[in-house]
Every structure is written in C-alpha cells, then in structure tokens.
C-alpha cells in the first residue's frame, strides 16, 4: 500500500512536470512566433527605422531562425548599413547563419558586398564555397563564377563552378573556359545543361581526345540542335573508328533522328553495318521500319 501510494505520487509529479514542460515549451514557441510576426511587421516601417531594430535582433540572444529571418529582411533594405551588416555576418558568423548571410548578399546584389564574396570563398570551407557560388548564381554574377573556375586548382571546385555557369546560361564564359582550360567532362555536361550545341559540335569534331569526342557526340544527340543529325551523319560517314561510329549512331538514336539512320541504311552496302542500322531503326520504332524489313526480306536492298 505504501509503495502504491509512492508510485501514485511519483506519477502525479511526473504528469505535472511534463505538463509544465509542455506549457513552458508552448510559451516559448508563442514568444518565438510573436517575435517572428514583429519581424515581418518591420517591412511596413521605413528602412531607417527598421534597420536598427533588425540589427538589434541579429546581435541579440535570439534563435537562429529569427536571425535568419532578420537577415532576409536586411537583404530587402536598401541601405549601406544593411549591406555592411550582411557582409559582417558572412565573415564572422558561423554555421547556418553564415551561409544564410552569404545567400542574402546574393539576394541583396549590392556591388560592395558581392565583391567581398571572393575572399569568403578562398577562406571558407566546402559549405561556404558552395554558398558563395549560390550567391553568385542568385545575383546572376557570371564574372564571379568564371573567376573561380579560372583560378581554382581543385577539380571538384572547377566542376561546381562550371555547373553553375551552365545554370546561368553563360555561353561565352563556358566557351572561354574550353579555350583556356581545354575540353573536359564537366564542360560537356555544362554544354548539355545550357543547350550549347555550338560548343558540342566543336568537341564532337575534335579528335584529339577520343573519349571526350565520344561524349560530345552523344551529347549532341541529347541537345538535339536543328542540324545535329547532319553533323552526326557526317561524323559517322567520315570516321574509321568503330567507337566513333557507334557514338554517332547513339547520338542519332538519342536525338530520334530516324530519317538519318534510314538514309545511312539505304546508302550502305555492308551487310553487317546494315544489320546494325536496322537494329537501331527497330529500337527507334521508326515508321519506316516495316518497309525496310520487307525490303530486306525481299532482298531488294
């Protein structure tokens, strides 16, 4: 009996304590929500009044969520102090707040803060570097990303920068990179992403590196520019390399150029080659495939 009473007392105490914790946690959440609402309301205030309050929130003992919200508001305030504060947080902040401050510099887009990103990139860890590239992307700052691609010694960083340039449709920068650094897998992927058939055509016809040439030929089929089939047929016909021929055929297959494959089929006098081409036509589900099969069976071709 005594033990049961003790147990009941302990249980009651636990229930009361957990209710207290839940209530306290709810109160904290309410406070946080209210602060967030107050932060939102600052957008109605003139910048000169809002700015010191936002900075106070950032420097105060507030949650990261609230501070991240304050950083976003700062990015929307057109004032030199707002930019300076963002840059300060991007330099001295840590963890998610630093990354958010960098993102906000991109959103803010102000030249002075943007100019500070390159130092952050050089000194930062992988997350910071990624955030800086993202900020350049947000601000549509092609030069910033191009400079990183040109100067980095790291293959991974180069690939990241090239991918961002592709996302930005920075055709000129990507062409310059090929000229300066030579062709690469990363560039071919970037040309696919940015629909840059002109560059792919150059690489598809460049026989200095067979592997890259094969990739570029297939990529040309993926991008599927207007006359990509003409280029692919030309490559197919002019090469003695079976690998290149196969790549060109794959390019035609990927690009769904069945008319061109049919033309190659009809022009060929080599039975083995015709068999391969027929297989491709079948895979492509070409409209002419039945006609070709009948011709083959009749021995017309």
């Amino acid at each position, binding site marked *: 009996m005594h033990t049961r009473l003790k147990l009941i007392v302990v249980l009651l105490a636990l229930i009361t304590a957990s209710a207290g914790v839940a209530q306290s946690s709810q109160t904290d959440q309410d406070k946080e929500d209210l602060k967030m609402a107050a932060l939102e309301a600052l957008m*109605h205030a003139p910048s000169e009044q809002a700015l010191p309050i936002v900075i106070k929130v950032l420097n105060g003992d507030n949650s990261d969520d609230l501070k991240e919200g304050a950083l*976003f508001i700062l990015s929307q305030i057109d004032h030199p102090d707002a930019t300076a504060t963002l840059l300060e947080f991007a330099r001295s902040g840590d963890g998610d707040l630093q990354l958010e401050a960098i993102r906000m510099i991109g959103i803010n887009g102000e030249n002075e803060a943007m100019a500070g990103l390159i130092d952050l990139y050089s000194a930062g860890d992988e997350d910071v570097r990624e955030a800086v590239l993202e900020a350049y992307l947000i601000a549509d700052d092609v030069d910033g990303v191009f400079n990183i691609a040109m100067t980095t010694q790291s293959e991974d960083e180069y690939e990241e920068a090239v991918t961002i340039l592709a996302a930005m449709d920075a055709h000129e920068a990507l062409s310059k990179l090929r000229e300066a650094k030579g062709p690469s897998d990363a560039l071919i992927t970037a040309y696919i992403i940015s629909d840059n058939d002109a560059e792919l055509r150059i690489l598809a016809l460049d026989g200095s590196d067979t592997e890259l040439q094969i990739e570029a030929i297939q990529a040309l089929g993926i991008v599927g520019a207007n006359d990509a089939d003409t280029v692919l047929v030309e490559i197919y016909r002019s090469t003695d390399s079976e690998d290149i021929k196969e790549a060109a055929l794959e390019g035609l297959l990927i690009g769904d150029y069945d008319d061109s494959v049919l033309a190659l089929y009809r022009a060929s006098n080599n039975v083995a080659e015709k068999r391969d081409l027929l297989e491709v036509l079948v895979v492509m589900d070409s409209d002419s495939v039945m006609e070709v099969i009948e011709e083959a069976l009749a021995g017309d071709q």
Partner: protein
Amino acid sequence: MNDDEQKLCHELDLAREIPVPADMQRRWHDSIDRAAQQEYSVRQEPARPFHFTSFFWGAAVTAALVAGIGIGAYLTGGPTTIQPNSYVVQDISTVSGAVPGAFTRGLQVHLRDTQQNIASMPIDTTEDRTLLVLQIIQQNRLFERAAEQNSSDDLARVLRAFEPILLRLAANDIAPTDAQALRDQLAFELKIMLTKLERDTSKDTQST
C-alpha cells in the same frame, strides 16, 4: 548540390523538350490573368518571345512531366508551346522605369499561390511533395524570367534564391524535420516579399 539534386537536374534537363500539358499552362495563365484582368483594357502590348529553356533547374518545367504529369500530356494531346502572358512580360521602356502594375500583381498572385501550396504541402509522401515543388519551381521560373524582362533585378534575385531551397525540398532524401524547416523559411520569405510588394504598390497608388 548533392548527388540527389544533380541527378534530379540531369533528369530535368534530359526531358526539357517534352511538351507542357495544356491543363498546367491553363493554370498558369489563369493565375496570371486573374491578376492582370484589371489592366487588360488599359494596356495590352504584344507578347515578347519568352525563352523558356536554359537554366538547368529551371528545366523543372519538364521535370514535372518526368515525374508523372507528362504522362497526362502524352495521353491527352499534342505538343504545345509555352507562351508568356503579355501582361506579365511587357516592355518596361514605355513605363518610365516603373515596374509594371500587371507584372507586380501577377507576381503577388504567384507568391500567394506558392505560400498556400507550401503550407498545404504533404511532408511525409515524398512523391507528392516532389511533384508539387517541381510545379512551384516551374511557375517560379516563369516569373523570374518575367522579372528580368521587366528590369526588376531585385525581384529576379529573390525568385532565383527560392529555387535552391525548393530543389532541396524536392529531394527524396530530405528528413521531415529539414523539410519543415525549409517550408518555414520559404513561408517567411514569401510573406516578407508579399508585404514588400503590397507596401510598394500602396505607395505607388498614394503617390498617383
């Protein structure tokens, strides 16, 4: 970008030539038209060509199709071309440096729709969430381009900044708590942008 995002972007890119389903286009145009209706009778300028390719995650346009919507398009009709609404993309040179009202209102509708979609987004079912997020990205891209064409670089930057967050939200491997954090962040930023746009619109109205 992590592997998941890269894979997603790659898939989007491969599928970018798939036509956009008519019902999806209709939804865009409906939302834009709602906002622009008032101005229609006052100003109607010819639509400028809208380049809707490029930008790899912008190719989310086609991703939605990859994810399933495309099946509907394939079954229901032939290819159609995305055309920008002329109220959204207009020639800023005739508006003496101001952001056109129709564009602003269209953007407000987009931001509000996004806000609602984010709020009602399923957290646990990855496929539904991914599909919805890709649709949001698709619309976001439209307005980002429109902002660029309307010389609203500041708005274009904010819209561009939403995309990496949306992409993270669309990823298959995101934890529910992380997804919730991203939703909260987006909800806050959307709200701020709406407030800012409303404030600016209100100022313009008062000054005229």
